[in-house]
Structures are given as structure tokens and as C-alpha cells.
């Protein structure tokens, strides 16, 4: 028996995914239910599990794109079946988008280039099969010489290019790694998967907007008491409600009063969102960062929000979050929490949102209240806004509303 590993459909608008990493090598034994493959959509990474036990035969290279429903790997139940597969179904037939040296670079191009030559809109003669192969293999057909009738590019021509690509010598990794511009390298990690997405998004956000941060502290003494009271009644409530969840609830309420913060600048238009969707940034070790979104948080109870946040975080940590669950945010909360060392940060906005609130660890500090030095639990905050659409005045007003709620949680009864 041979079972297939198929690129799954994870969202309505998805058309393809990127093969990020094979968790097992070609020919390695995998078990039913074990994660064999990590794929990536524009938004998330997803762990694909083996449907059966057996020997893995990979059909797609890391970095390659695969269409939804496409078979990207096979699992052969027996060693004999595996050997047969290796012979009959060529491995790595879907090559990666990575550069493999000059000849590869010369023909591999963006798939968008397919069908357009020289920018003049000149039609390229190519057979339907050849076109499909070229698209899948990321071959730039403007650089392929057609040998069919009237110079038409046929299947054989694409197969020849693929043969050539296979021959391109890859320099031994040791040589490539040892020295880089005179400095010794320990490792060269390809920018891929979630790291690449984070890199592109963070840089894109800072390069594309005017970010201004407001730093300060809320007196969270009553909030701490409020949470303690909730924890004492955890059994009755049914969930362990965290500060993050309470903050999601409070932010949603504050945004209701300050729609000017709940906006996006899209194509010369400031879109004021009716929906209040709060993203909650979650760190996945050193490498990962995901922002699951609580949709319409202003319409949900604290318990609902608490349960939803927990469920989303579990999914994110398990590599099982869907693209739809990490998109559509209108405001982001990034909470460093108790593990944090720093009080302040300058959070980077998750575009196309216009504001992000970071909170630091709550610490007991001496403060002056009514002319006396007293101990209070202080929560540092850092609010970054997009100054293109929000002014300092608006930001301060939003912070004032939030401050009121944090400092007097009882006010939530009025909401």
C-alpha cells in the first residue's frame, strides 16, 4: 500500500502552499500520525501528518510551491514498494525556488513571468502540458527554446531544462559555510518559512508607515485584586482567566469608544472598522511568532474571550492554526507578561492595522498616592500608532479610557 501526502486546503482563498520542511528524510521510516511535513501559506505554517506508517518518498523540494490537492510525497508501506516508487516516480521532481547557480538562475524565474515575453506582451508558443510543467517547476518560459512546430515549447523542452538543472553542481556545503567575507561561519540558515514571513512583514511595516510609540505605566493594583478574585472562583467560572485575556476584553471595549484607533489606511482611504478584532501575539520559541485573532471581541464575554484565546494559542503552538484564524485583525496586543525583563518596547504594527499595545511585567513599585509613598502594582505599556492616520491626541484619549478600566476594573460593570 502506498499512501499520499497531499498539500491541504487550509483556507477559502488559498491556491498554493510552500513546502517548508520535510521532518523525515527520503526513505526514512515514518509512523502514522507523526508530522512528516511542514507547509506554509502566506499566513501560517501547518504540520502535515502521515496517514500511514512506512517509508517516505518526497516529491517536492523544500522551498517549492505546491498546488492545493497536489501529491507532494508518498509513503510506501514496505521497503520493496518504496524502491519501486523511487524508480518509477522520480523524487524531487518539483524543484525549489532556491538559486542553484548561474544556469539555474538563468531559467528559473517567477511563475508570474510565464506567458509574457520581453514585456511586450508577445505571445509565447507553448503546449498546455509544457506550460503546466513550467509553472509547477518555476521555469521561466521566456528563456526556454521551443523545438516544436514553429518554435513551440513542448513537453520535451521543459524536460530538457529540468535535466540541465539537475546537472548544475552544488558547491560542497563546507566550502560555502567555512568563511563568509573573511569571517568564520558556524552555520548558514536559509531564510525560510515563518522566519522569512516575519522578516518581510516587520520590515514592510516599518518601511511603509510612520510609527510613533507612547510609553507609560498603568496602576494595576485593583486589576491584580480583580484577577485574584476571578482565580479564587476559577471552578465556578470554569477557566483560568489571564491578564492577557482581560486586556483583550478591555481593549475591545475601549476601541468601541475610540473608533479612530480601529482603522486601516488602504489605498488612500482610511477604513474605519465596524468589527473589532483583536490579535494576540504569541511567541513560538525563538523562531516563531503568530498573531491569532479574536474576532468581534467587543461582542464577546470575558469567559468567551478567555476560552477563545486559549484555544487559538493551543492551535498556534501545535502548528494547527488556520490562515483564517490569523487574519482580519484590527488591533494587536503583545503581552510580555511575567517572564519579561524589560518594561518597555516599541512594538511594530501588524499591517494594515494602525495600532499595537505592548504590556510588560506587572511589578510592585513605590508610587506617590495622595502625597504618600505607597506600594502599587504597576503595569508598563507601550502603544505604537501609525501617525499617518492617528494623532497623538487620539492615542492619548484611547490610553486614558484603557487606563480607567485597568485602574478601576469595576467600571467594566458599566460596559
Amino acid at each position, binding site marked *: 500500500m502506498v499512501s499520499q501526502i497531499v498539500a491541504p486546503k487550509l483556507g477559502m482563498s488559498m491556491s498554493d502552499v510552500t513546502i517548508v520542511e520535510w521532518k523525515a528524510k527520503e526513505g526514512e521510516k515514518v509512523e502514522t500520525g507523526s508530522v512528516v511535513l511542514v507547509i506554509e501559506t502566506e499566513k501560517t505554517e501547518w504540520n502535515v501528518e502521515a496517514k500511514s506508517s512506512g517509508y517516505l518518498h518526497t516529491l517536492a523540494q523544500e522551498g517549492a510551491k505546491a498546488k492545493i490537492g*497536489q*501529491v507532494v510525497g508518498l509513503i510506501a508501506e514496505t521497503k520493496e514498494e518504496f524502491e519501486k516508487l523511487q524508480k*518509477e*516516480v522520480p523524487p524531487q521532481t518539483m524543484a525549489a525556488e532556491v538559486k542553484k547557480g548561474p544556469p539555474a538562475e538563468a531559467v528559473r524565474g517567477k511563475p508570474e513571468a510565464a506567458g509574457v515575453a520581453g514585456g511586450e506582451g508577445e505571445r509565447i508558443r507553448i*503546449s*498546455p*502540458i*509544457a506550460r*503546466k*510543467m513550467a509553472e*509547477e517547476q518555476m521555469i521561466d518560459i521566456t528563456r526556454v527554446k521551443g523545438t516544436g512546430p514553429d518554435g513551440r515549447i*513542448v*513537453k520535451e523542452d521543459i524536460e530538457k531544462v529540468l535535466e540541465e538543472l539537475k546537472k548544475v553542481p552544488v558547491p560542497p556545503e563546507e566550502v560555502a559555510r567555512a568563511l563568509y567575507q573573511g569571517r568564520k561561519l558556524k552555520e548558514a540558515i536559509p531564510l525560510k518559512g515563518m522566519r522569512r514571513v516575519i522578516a518581510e512583514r516587520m520590515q514592510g511595516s516599518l518601511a511603509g508607515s510612520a510609527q510613533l510609540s507612547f510609553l507609560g505605566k498603568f496602576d494595576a493594583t485593583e486589576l491584580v485584586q480583580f484577577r485574584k478574585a476571578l482565580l479564587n472562583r476559577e471552578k465556578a467560572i470554569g477557566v483560568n482567566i489571564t491578564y492577557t485575556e482581560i486586556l483583550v476584553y478591555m481593549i475591545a471595549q475601549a476601541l468601541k469608544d475610540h473608533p479612530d484607533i480601529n482603522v486601516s489606511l488602504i489605498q488612500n482611504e482610511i477604513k474605519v472598522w465596524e468589527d473589532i478584532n483583536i490579535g494576540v501575539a504569541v511567541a513560538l520559541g525563538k523562531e516563531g511568532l503568530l498573531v491569532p485573532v479574536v474576532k468581534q471581541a467587543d461582542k464577546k464575554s470575558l469567559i468567551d474571550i478567555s476560552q477563545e484565546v486559549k484555544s487559538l494559542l493551543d492551535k498556534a503552538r501545535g502548528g494547527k492554526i488556520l490562515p483564517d484564524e490569523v487574519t482580519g485583525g484590527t488591533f494587536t496586543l503583545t503581552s510580555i507578561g511575567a517572564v519579561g525583563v524589560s518594561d518597555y518596547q516599541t512594538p511594530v504594527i501588524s499591517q494594515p492595522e494602525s495600532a499595537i499595545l505592548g504590556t510588560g511585567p506587572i511589578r510592585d513599585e513605590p508610587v506617590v498616592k495622595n502625597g504618600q509613598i505607597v506600594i502599587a502594582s504597576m503595569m508598563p505599556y507601550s502603544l505604537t500608532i501609525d501617525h499617518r492616520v492617528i494623532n497623538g491626541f487620539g492615542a492619548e484619549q484611547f490610553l486614558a479610557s484603557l487606563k480607567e478600566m485597568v485602574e478601576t476594573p469595576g467600571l467594566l460593570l458599566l460596559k
Partner: protein
Amino acid sequence: MEDRDVVIIGGGPAGYTAAIRVAQLGAKATIVENDTIGGICVNHGCIPTVALARAVELLETGKSAKDYGITYEDMKVDFRRMMSKKEAVVKTLVSGVKQMLEAYGVEVIEGTGKLISSSLIEVHLKDGTKKELKARKIIISTGSRYPKAYFSEGVEKVINPIEALRLKEIPKSILIVGGGFVGAIFVTIFSKLGAKVSIAEESSRMLPQVDKEIVFILEKEFKDNDIQIYSKARVMSVESDKENGLNILINVKGEEMRAGAQYVLMTEPREANIDGLGLRKVGVELNKKGGILVNERMETSIPGIFAAGDVTMEHMWTTVAYFEGMTAAENATGQNSKVDYRAIPLWTHSIPEISCVGMTEEETTAKGYQVRVGRFPFAGNGMAAILGQRRGMVKVIKEERFGEILGVHMIGPRAGDLIAEAALAMRMEGTPGEIAKTFHVHPSLSEVLWEAARGT
């Protein structure tokens, strides 16, 4: 001695096509022909056989005409008229080919050619004299023939297809040996004319090149018409028997049995027409099948000598011979061309007709393809209902990943014409998707392929 550009020995489909192509490319072509221009196809094969198939088709049409309110009083078969109509068709086409050769200025020498060297040919003319021709390039397209004798020599009424086309009477009974494309059409002709027909086929079914599902429909049709099919059968001997005509010993699936018939028609085997050509002397090598060894440019082992058509004993279809002739001509006149043997459409005018191009589903699975299959019955087609010919189906087999069409097989009315679209789609590396997105006339039989393509 006058130098000739290209001398072609044999004026059949490969030879006359080569001659015309040579002329089109600006060189002088000479054909040496020892029988009639047009070769087996025009004179003794495709054309006269299909002309007879047309006659029995008319008979069928005439029978079904009453369903449409038209009654032919006194409808009967006049076998002699049928044969003379067939001859008339042959004559028309032979003179058509001759006119075309004349129009292209092709020289035709009537006689038997023999190679003396790679550039010299000796021709034994019909008047008994000899003539030498000096040629820059030579194309051998002498075709194939049926063996002179099959079993014990001298047994009458063991005939080949050429002799079957010359019969003076409709056989009372006939055993057709070989259930291939030639066998299937003769089964249809003789059974529709009232003969008791049986078939002996060596493989487990008729027409091994055609998909099983399609062939089973034909075999059922034959069986329903009281035709006996012996599969895995080999005729061991044939003896004259005064009462039955012929006493035939057949080994069927390892067991010997006897059958009687007035005639035995041997559609297989065939052999290359190479006797007396002087191939060995000049050094032209043969292949394992006993035909002339050629590459895809139709070059033989001797530079300057090309071979095309049945004489190679490969792809023995007129359909292919045309291309081989053209390719030989192009290479003989300094061009560089190859025959691409993918997607050869095959056809036989059985009733219903059968045609195919590419692989059968069995072949695709044996080669490890992951396939998807689309089928559509003629029973679901408007035009087939109008024609009153609703038997049959079209089957499209595509490779799953890129959608390449691996094979199209059909049985039904006008299958021979309908297969052209499938062959073109395969040649252009199209997918069933392209066929599905192409407008097809309504109502027409072509919609059946369209529907089958949509089903993949």
C-alpha cells in the same frame, strides 16, 4: 547516363508521398513501380476493403430506413455490382494519384528495381529490357505482402485479404484468422453479407491495441450476431474436405479442436517486399522483423539510401507510411526531419467502427501512470439517436498530474473521423480540459468526445 535526384522504388503510399514531397522541395523524383501506382492500400487494401464496408453499411442503413418511414421494396445484394463499385473506387483513386504525380512532374518508370550500389539502380522493364538509373538518393518503399502459401501448399480457399477482395461469391462460411484491424473489417463485411463467420485470434481478445472496455463491446456485438470468436487460438492445419470445404485444426487455449468452413482468410502474417532488391549486396541491413532497418530519419545503414512504409515492417499503417515517405523525402533533399511516432490514430470499419490513439488503460497502469478516465456513451448523444446508431462509447485516459492525454479509444458511428480531434489534442500536448473548453457543434457526434473529456 542521366543523373536523377531521388529514385523511389515502389509507388505505394510511402513512395508516392515521398515523390510529391521531393518535387515540392524542388528536386526531381522518379518512381519505379512494378504493379499499379497506389500500392496495396489503394489497390488491394484499405480503399477496396472500406469500399465493401461502405456497401454493407448501406445495407444496414437500408434495413433501418423503415424505422424512418422509408421502405425500399425489393432490397437485395448484388455481389458482382458491389465488387465492381469497389473496383471503380479503386480506379478513381489510382488515376487521382497518377494525375497528382504528373502535376508534380514525377517520372514514373514501369518495371522492377534492383540496387546495384548506393547510387545505381537496375530496372527490369515490362518489355523485358533493362535500364540503369543513376540516383543521388534512393528511397525504398516496396511495401509488404502476404505469404505465398500458408499451410500445406495447394489447398484452395485458404486466402489472403487481397484474394478475399476478388471473390466471385459471398462465402457460405469463413474462418478469419487474426482478430486485428484487418480481421475485424472482414468479419463485419462477410457476416453482414450473410456468411457464417468465425474468428481465430492468438491473444486473449481481439484488437489488443484497443482498450479492453471498447473491444468487449465489439466482441459482444459480434457474438450477438452469431459470430464465433476463438481467443488464444492458433490454426494448426487446414485440409480439403469434400463436404465442408475445409477441415481446420485449431489449438484453442491448449486444446485441439476441429472446425469446418468454406474459406479460411489469413489476415496475418505479412512480410517485407525485399526479394530481388539486392539489399544484401549493397549492405542494407535488416531488422529483427525482417524489414529494412531505419532510424527515425528513415535512413538505412547505407548513406544515401532511405526506406519508408511497410518495407520496414514497423508501424504498418498507411497513416504512418505517408509520414515516413515525407520524412525520407525531406532528408533525401537535405532537410532534417524525423518521424514522431507518438499519437498514431488507428481505425477499423467494423460496425460499429472502432478507433484509438495512444495507450490503453492497461498499458498506462503497467507503466506506472496515475490516471483518470472519462467515458461517455453514444447512447447519450443527440446525433447518435438521430442516426439510429446509439451503440458504443468514447473513453479518454489522462495522466493525473499534468492532465496529459495518454489515450483515447472509441467504438461507435464515425469513430474513424472522430479520433482526429483526439490525435490533434495529443499532438499539441493538450489536456481534456482544452477539449472540454472547445465549442463542439450541436447536435453532432463530436460531442461524445467532448463529454468524455469533461468526465476526466
